[in-house]
């Protein structure tokens, strides 16, 4: 079966490439321009990669998580997230959903190192946090829906030393001081994929900025693999790898 899939994939890709006339230089310039136009948006997409916005597995009281890729590597976002269950599903009364608090913080290590060692960067500060709550309810033995709210905040400041400002696409960049702040609504559905393995799909929607993302995740006891999609972002696909423990 796997061989068959590979053959089909190869055929499709070869067929596609045969028509391809991709101007990579132009595409690169476009991407760079989009980052310069909205640096906070670009960095916030990576914050969403580390945000833990799925409910705790049934029976667990609290959990911790750290994002490994693309957050710690290569973006150097040193990060930690936590979840705390306030109410287990059906504890108070049948049908009352599970309620979890979520939150986390990150700081960009590269920004600190750059400030310390760089000949050109005068100061740099990139960090952010999020907090919120997730309500989850089983709708069948194999399906759980979840709903949530999160407040996300990001701060991105960078200043170059006088006389050391770089030229970017013909423009001298001396500094930027930007940020991102929004209240998000979350809707998702979770279903088992195997023994102790879950699969979920969720939508995060920012009420003020109208930023939205779709997160598809596979997670087990220790790791979460995900594919976060930012249709309006600079890098549309973010493959994600996170480590978590739930107790």
């Amino acid at each position, binding site marked *: 079966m796997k061989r068959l899939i590979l053959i089909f994939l190869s055929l499709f890709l070869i067929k596609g490439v045969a*028509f391809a006339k991709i101007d990579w230089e132009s595409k690169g310039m476009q991407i760079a321009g989009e980052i310069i136009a909205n640096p906070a948006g670009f960095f916030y997409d990576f914050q969403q990669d580390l945000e833990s916005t799925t409910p705790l597995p049934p029976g667990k009281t609290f959990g911790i998580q750290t994002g490994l890729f693309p957050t710690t590597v290569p973006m150097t976002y040193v990060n930690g997230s936590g979840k705390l269950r306030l109410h287990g599903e059906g504890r108070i009364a049948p049908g009352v959903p599970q309620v979890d608090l979520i939150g986390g913080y990150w700081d960009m290590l590269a920004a600190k190192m750059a400030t310390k060692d760089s000949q050109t960067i005068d100061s740099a500060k990139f960090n952010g946090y999020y907090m919120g709550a997730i309500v989850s309810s089983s709708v069948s033995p194999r399906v759980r829906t979840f709903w949530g709210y999160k407040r996300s905040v990001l701060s991105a400041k960078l200043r170059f030393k006088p006389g050391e400002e770089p030229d970017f696409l013909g423009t001298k960049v001396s500094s930027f001081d930007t940020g991102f702040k929004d209240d998000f609504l979350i809707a998702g559905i979770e279903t088992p994929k195997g023994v102790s393995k879950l699969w979920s799909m969720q939508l995060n929607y920012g009420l003020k900025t109208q930023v939205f993302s779709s997160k598809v995740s596979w997670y087990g006891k220790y790791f979460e693999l995900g594919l976060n999609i930012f249709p309006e972002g600079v890098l549309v696909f973010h493959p994600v790898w996170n480590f978590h423990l739930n107790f």
Partner: protein
Amino acid sequence: MKKIILSAFIAAGMAGRLCAAVAEDSKIFTPFFDMTMTEAGYLPSEGNIFSGANINTQVGLLSKITQKDHLFGLYNFSYAGAGFAPQDSKQFTDRSMGHNFTIEYRRVLGEKFRVRPGFSFGRDYSRSGANEAWKNGLYNMNTAGLQLAGDFMFDTEKNGIVTLTYLGKSVKFPNYTDLLREFMDPANTAAANGGLQDQTLKQVSLRSGWNNFFGGLTVTQQDYKNQKVVANTGIYGDTKQKDKTTMLDAGFHHKLWIFEMSPMVSYSMHRSNQNFMRYKFLGATSTNLLDGSSDVSFIKKNYDYNETTLSVPVDLNITGKWAVGGAMNITSRAYTDRAKRDSNNNYITGSKQKNMMSTLTGSIRKRINDVAMVRLFYSLVVASSNNKFEKYMPYNYTGNTFGLSYQLSY
């Protein structure tokens, strides 16, 4: 205009989805959840690679107040990103996003009848390739309306149903401005942005389904509140614009051995009393508006067309989990009066414009479990038209699409 029609058809589609949500006997509350997401890369024969997504999320709750009285609420989030589209519909880089709410009361009458009055409201955003803020989209629209549907159920083992639905909506475009009129007469803002696209939309549909076969007739009437019809003198008269679309569609979803097919065909007739003035450049003038080669030409019934769409997706279920799929989609539009144009924007007298867009798709589908699936696909798009004026919108091109889609529904 296309957006409104699309919106109307989506509304009809949503009505179908609403109908599909059925209360489980043992539950007071039954949730409804459907999330599909497609992300794809697009490589046209002219222009550079770009990416786009389609997201549709529906979350709803059906509450069984009594055995005969049900209440259903549904929220629908939709996003249509950049992508290939049939000619004369949208630019590759256009995007849209919508939030729509529907609340429906259901009353069962006897064993075979049900009535479903309801109301809906929504906000739709549009965005062009210029990346303007969502709130500033020229075609942003707010909708609010009422619905009354009646169902007749038969052959319950095979889900037989006949549904008659009436939908009335008010549609407002708060940001719309007529850019050409604004340019030509900057002082007269009332004529340029006085709710020119605002309209009322009425839709009647009669649909039936049985044993996974379905079909129906949908008639949509759009009455513009302010937009006047342009006369052959090049001046707007007193008659207000009215558009009518009649659509017939049919299809089925069946499995035969390892084959799973869900073909669908539709035929639409769009008629409008609006005409069109074609200016070759800003400030153009002409003494003979009826000459298709003039700098300014009057095109009567420019927007009337008949459109056929055919979609034939087939999946070969190789195993319980894996399937190899193929699909063919054809959209063919023939204008009833609009002549084709040459590359210099001259209308060719005696001809009629015809567009066709064909898509061939190959895919691999993996069923993750009974509620979720993922699909990897490649599509070859061939768009052709006898309209050779392509300065602002491509009519003849080929394109490659490769992407990934997920679906999770409960």
